[in-house]
């Protein structure tokens, strides 16, 4: 029996390695876990893209919010936009935008052309707020609870199924707390 194991051992090792390689290769390397889960939104004061008073972290207090990070230079954001318009129409949650490293004029024109799903839009031209939020790309979506604590981060475009299967349940969960 001993000699049989010696023959099959390299094969078993290979199968084991292939299993782990397969798991690693099928991961999306840009879907990084957020380091800010269960931590408060960092303090900030940024201009409102559409003018008016500056926006601070106080905007998230008192209700569950969705913060969506987007930019006009992000093609994926453009493709997911109709879904966001749909979500905004349902009005079940505070829906905010973070205009990330973008030209404010371009962004305002873009929203006029394609519609504005956001109740308020934080303008982060330099990307400094993005660094504080651990943003590594667009689009990204944060779910923030009533106390201003980040509870969930989704990396990637928001499709209808992503909204229904991933984000909406999280929102309901934190709304019921």
């Amino acid at each position, binding site marked *: 029996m001993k000699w049989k194991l010696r023959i099959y051992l390299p094969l078993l090792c290979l199968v084991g390695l292939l299993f782990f390689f397969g798991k690693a290769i099928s991961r999306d*390397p*840009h879907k*990084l*876990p*957020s*380091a*800010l889960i269960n931590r408060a939104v960092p303090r900030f004061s940024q201009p409102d893209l559409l003018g008016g008073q500056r926006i601070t972290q106080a905007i998230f207090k008192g209700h569950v919010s969705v913060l969506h990070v987007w930019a006009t230079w992000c093609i994926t954001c453009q493709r997911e936009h109709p879904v966001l318009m749909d979500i905004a129409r349902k009005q079940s949650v505070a829906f905010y935008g973070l205009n990330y*490293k973008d030209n404010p004029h371009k962004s305002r024109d873009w929203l006029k052309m394609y519609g504005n799903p956001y109740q308020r839009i934080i303008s982060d031209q*330099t*990307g*400094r707020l*993005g*660094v*504080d*939020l*651990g943003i*590594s*790309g667009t689009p990204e979506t944060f779910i923030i609870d009533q106390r201003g604590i980040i509870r969930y981060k989704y990396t990637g475009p928001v499709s209808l199924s992503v909204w229904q299967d991933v984000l909406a349940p999280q929102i309901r969960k934190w709304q019921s707390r």
Partner: protein
Amino acid sequence: MFYYPHQCFVLKWGILLICLGCLLHPGAAMGNHALHSAYPFASAKKRARFENLTGNLRCLVCQNESLWDSNAPLAVDLRRIVYQQVKQGATDQAIKQYLVARYGEFILLQPVFKTTTYLLWIVPFCLLFFSMGIVIWWVHHNKARTFAKSD
């Protein structure tokens, strides 16, 4: 294959030296010399710290490049933040903690050595010694068989 003992000797020790050289190679790549003028430092020591730090931090967009090498917009932003903090006198540890607090430990190119990463650090060495052991045993086993046959 080997007619003279010294060939085997040279091969064995040559391979070992190459392996050691690979292990001791520093993490920072110094290829991006154009960056020197974009990040002026009064002191050479601070510049060295800046290069070393950014060389050991990962670009999260081009994930196999360091912040020193990458030209992704996020890397440019993070390089500038590291530059400002080094200029202001923050320690290496503080700067790393600042970035890890925002991006997680993945941003460090060298994983932190702690209980959850013991395996990550130790397994490669274990595998190396294990396979060396098998090769040595196999060669010894074959030598013994050849000698036995030639009797």
